[in-house]
């Protein structure tokens, strides 16, 4: 997963980047399965690795992008960016090693009464009904907005 993620940042050809990201997302879905989140793993494969990345590939091919030409890189910006990222990782590993809570083993699950999808559905429609409907409206608004944006003549 990490390797493919690095591929996205390093590779020059946008198509190779997109395919690398797909592989990274598939590996991420495998990690979700190891965490017993089957529904989320399937959603990750279907929505993110499937629909969203197909959209990305479509746009890349629609715009007919070539591998980017090597341009002059700003050394200062690059060093600054690398420094910020290194600080972030360092801070994270410090935090993770500071508390024994982070090194607990995987707690066992009880014998499940319902399947994972049933539990997700119960939670979604009992405790999260209003956010669910709001999300529906959001998707509608996004669809209308995209149609409006991609008309030939923007007024």
């Amino acid at each position: 997963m990490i390797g493919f993620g690095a591929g996205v940042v390093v590779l020059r050809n946008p198509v190779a980047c997109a395919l690398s990201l797909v592989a990274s997302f598939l590996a991420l879905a495998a990690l979700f399965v190891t965490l017993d989140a089957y529904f989320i793993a399937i959603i990750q494969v279907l929505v993110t690795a499937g629909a969203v990345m197909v959209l990305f590939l479509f746009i890349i091919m629609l715009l007919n992008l070539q591998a980017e030409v090597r341009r002059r890189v700003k050394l200062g910006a690059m060093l600054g960016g690398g420094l910020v990222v290194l600080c972030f990782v360092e801070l994270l590993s410090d935090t993770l090693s500071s508390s024994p809570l982070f090194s607990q083993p995987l707690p066992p699950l009880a014998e499940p009464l319902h399947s994972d999808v049933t539990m997700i559905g119960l939670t979604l429609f009992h405790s999260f009904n209003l956010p669910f409907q709001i999300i529906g409206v959001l998707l509608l608004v996004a669809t209308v907005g995209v149609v409006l944006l991609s008309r030939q003549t923007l007024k």
Partner: protein
Amino acid sequence: MITLSHYLMASGILFALGLTGVMLRRNIIIVFMCLEMMLSATNLSLVAFSRYGVVQGHSNYQAQMLVFFIITVAAAEVAVGLAIIVALFRAKQTIHTEDLNSLKF
């Protein structure tokens, strides 16, 4: 034995990779893909917390709900963002962030 910190570290490294991409890459589509990668890294840490914070013998499904909503919003955001990028490309014939400087002070 895999502990919570392993998952969180993997998630953090993926997030850091996405952050590097957003800051260092100049191709606006790749910047967008790296944003997507950062969202997924957040999802990984949320699912890990959900599995390790067991409630009555079940994973904590409230965290998984949050992941579900994040994935939905991310899909909507990708659609809108790519539409904007296509409109931008039509207007300017470029997707290189350094060439898009008309809003720059």
